[in-house]
């Protein structure tokens, strides 16, 4: 794409030529973290946007070089802290690929269960905050938000009984998982997802029968399939724009080929299409968790011994890239190993980072209120954007 197009500015036939430059962020109620959008307004219409990121930069790639293969998975979860399980999974998958470590079948199934539960939890938070953006903290959005948080809590409870942590888990380790499921956990998990499945119908009834929700989302922030591919968005954004691509199906990792699930695709490319994609993903994730619980094989949970010292995993010289389908899209880790206990170099591909690049292409021409609706539908997590 040409350079001049990377920042779209549209010209409007506006009587006066006074433009208002307004900062949205870095401290702003709907900045979803610390994001600064410098909007140029003509009246209520946005004519240009400058997106400023980097407020949450924590040198993750350098940290990856400084910490051993045993230590880093718990830090990897701090990139995308809303979906920590999949971020960890991406790192350990990359290390296993470079080192050619086997992962026992049971561990692979456990990884699928937590990854899909994490997707449900992450989408819950997305739906809540997105409605909060559109409906306000003192309005209907807050109601949806609290309902979603209620469901997310249930999944966090499951994770807590599994790993002892509620936000950043350290569940995965190179070669398998660190914990096995405790007795009775599978039953609790089944009950939880059954409850969530039932509540999803309530959300859909509350939102899709609501004309105000529809006018705020339909036809807003349209991403064409071409634009989506040029910018390189992934995950629900790409699938909402008619690109039928899901890494779980295209490049199955961790035994995803064993499960039967649909990949939702919508062609409209607007906020509503992205919402629909995620709502179907909720249900597909629930289906996958059920299948994985049903077919959970017996056996060891790791091909490697339990963690005793930080330097115990050594990866032979080599390099490789592994990617997984996170809640927000493709999360990839590129690892260059030099034979020691630490990687020589690590590169993270954050899904939110690539997805956020779409904003300057679709925001100009929208109203101010659409900016937050579009931002919410992109669902960025700034830990992952800035890393």
């Amino acid at each position, binding site marked *: 794409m040409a350079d001049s197009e990377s920042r779209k500015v549209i010209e409007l036939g506006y009587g006066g030529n006074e433009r208002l430059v307004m900062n949205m962020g870095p401290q702003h109620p709907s900045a979803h973290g610390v994001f600064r959008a410098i909007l140029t307004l003509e009246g*209520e219409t946005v004519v240009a946007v400058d997106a400023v990121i980097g407020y949450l930069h924590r040198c993750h790639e350098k940290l990856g070089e400084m910490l051993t293969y045993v230590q880093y998975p718990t830090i990897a979860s701090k990139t995308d802290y809303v979906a920590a399980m999949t971020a960890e999974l991406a790192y350990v998958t990359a290390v296993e690929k470079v080192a050619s470590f086997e992962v026992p079948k049971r561990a692979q199934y456990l990884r699928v269960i937590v990854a899909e539960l994490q997707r449900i939890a992450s989408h819950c938070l997305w739906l809540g905050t997105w409605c909060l953006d559109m409906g306000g903290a003192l309005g209907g959005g807050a109601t949806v938000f609290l309902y979603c948080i209620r469901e997310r809590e249930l999944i966090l409870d499951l994770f807590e009984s599994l790993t002892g942590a509620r936000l950043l888990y350290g569940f995965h380790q190179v070669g398998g998982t660190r914990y096995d499921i405790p007795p009775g956990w599978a039953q609790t998990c089944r009950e939880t997802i059954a409850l969530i499945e039932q509540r999803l119908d309530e959300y859909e009834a509350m939102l899709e029968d609501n004309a105000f929700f529809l006018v705020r989302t339909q036809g807003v922030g349209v991403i064409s399939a071409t634009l989506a591919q040029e910018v390189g968005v992934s995950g629900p954004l790409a699938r909402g724009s008619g690109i039928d691509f899901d890494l779980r199906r295209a490049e199955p990792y961790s035994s995803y080929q064993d499960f039967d699930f649909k990949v939702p695709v919508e062609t409209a490319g607007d906020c509503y299409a992205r919402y629909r994609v995620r709502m179907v993903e909720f249900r597909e994730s629930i289906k996958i968790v059920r299948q994985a619980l049903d077919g959970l094989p017996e056996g060891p949970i790791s091909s490697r011994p339990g963690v005793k010292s930080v330097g115990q995993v050594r990866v032979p010289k080599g390099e490789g890239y592994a990617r997984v389908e996170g809640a927000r899209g493709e999360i990839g880790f590129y690892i260059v190993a030099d034979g020691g206990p630490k990687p020589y170099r690590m590169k993270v591909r954050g899904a939110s980072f690539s997805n956020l690049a779409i904003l300057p292409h679709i925001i100009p021409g929208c109203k101010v209120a659409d900016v937050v609706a579009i931002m919410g539908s992109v669902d960025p997590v700034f830990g992952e954007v800035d890393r």
Partner: protein
Amino acid sequence: MEHLALDALAAFILLNAVIGMVTYVTLLERKFAARMQSRIGPYRVGPHGLLQPIADALKLMMKEDIVPRAADRWVYNLAPIVFLIPCVLIFATIPFAPRLGLADLNIGVLFFLAVSSLEIVGLFMGGWGSNNKYALLSAMRAVNQIISYDLPFVFAALIPVVLAGSLQMSAIVAAQQGLWFVAYPVIGQLGFVAFLVATLAAENRVPFDILEAESELVAGFRVEYSGMKFAIIQLGEYAHMIASSFLGALLFLGGWLGPGSDIPAIGVLWFLLKAMLVFLVVTWVRWSFVRIRVDQILAVSWKLLLPATLGLLLVTAFWVALRGGAGA
């Protein structure tokens, strides 16, 4: 002279009653919203959180009062008062029971509508005087919205006026002796719904709260206000909302009429009950809708609500003419 003192006393009592009502209506709303969202709501201050509004008020009084350096000091400081006055003044015309009100004007409804739309002056002053971009944008939206929604609001409020054949509040209630206006076939229900929608918009409540719009404009025109000035703006907003609920109860729900309403005390109770019902409907809508966009708000007003209320008013007028005169 004695007469004047009595009037002043009545006004003093009413003013304090309004302030007390506003503080406790916030508690009602918070409890109601909490129930909707499967929460408990305020619970810690006093039994069942009953002292929460007082704690809130005390907190706001003790807050530091900050005036932004770039603000237009005069306009900025005056705005909350200018905003509050019309919001409280409209209570003057509301009769709470037969002969229990400050001034049962013969143009009561007109006075109410005229004065309540004056709040925009204070609102715009606040938005302009703050010298803040969010506040400015919000003030612009407010002017747009209030101009657009005053007309449907007036038309919807005129339907009962035409039915009763009077602008006097007590006469409108008296005309509902047989049948509340909301129970009139078709006209009454449509009129009431139109009135509620226009009320929501004229009061800047969700889903029409684009001028507060905390997810875009942070807090809109009052983003720079703190402490007591913020409290005054909040007070004005809630006072306006309660007054509109009273108006809805008077115009459509038969005011103080109800079993046993011959005794003034019971009449007042009925009236408050109905007004709170209207208020809760407004609150219910608030906590279940998302906000709509500014251009959509204007479209709803000019393309839908204005023709609908105007048509309804004409139909009502024809019907009254056919019936051969207004009144019960």
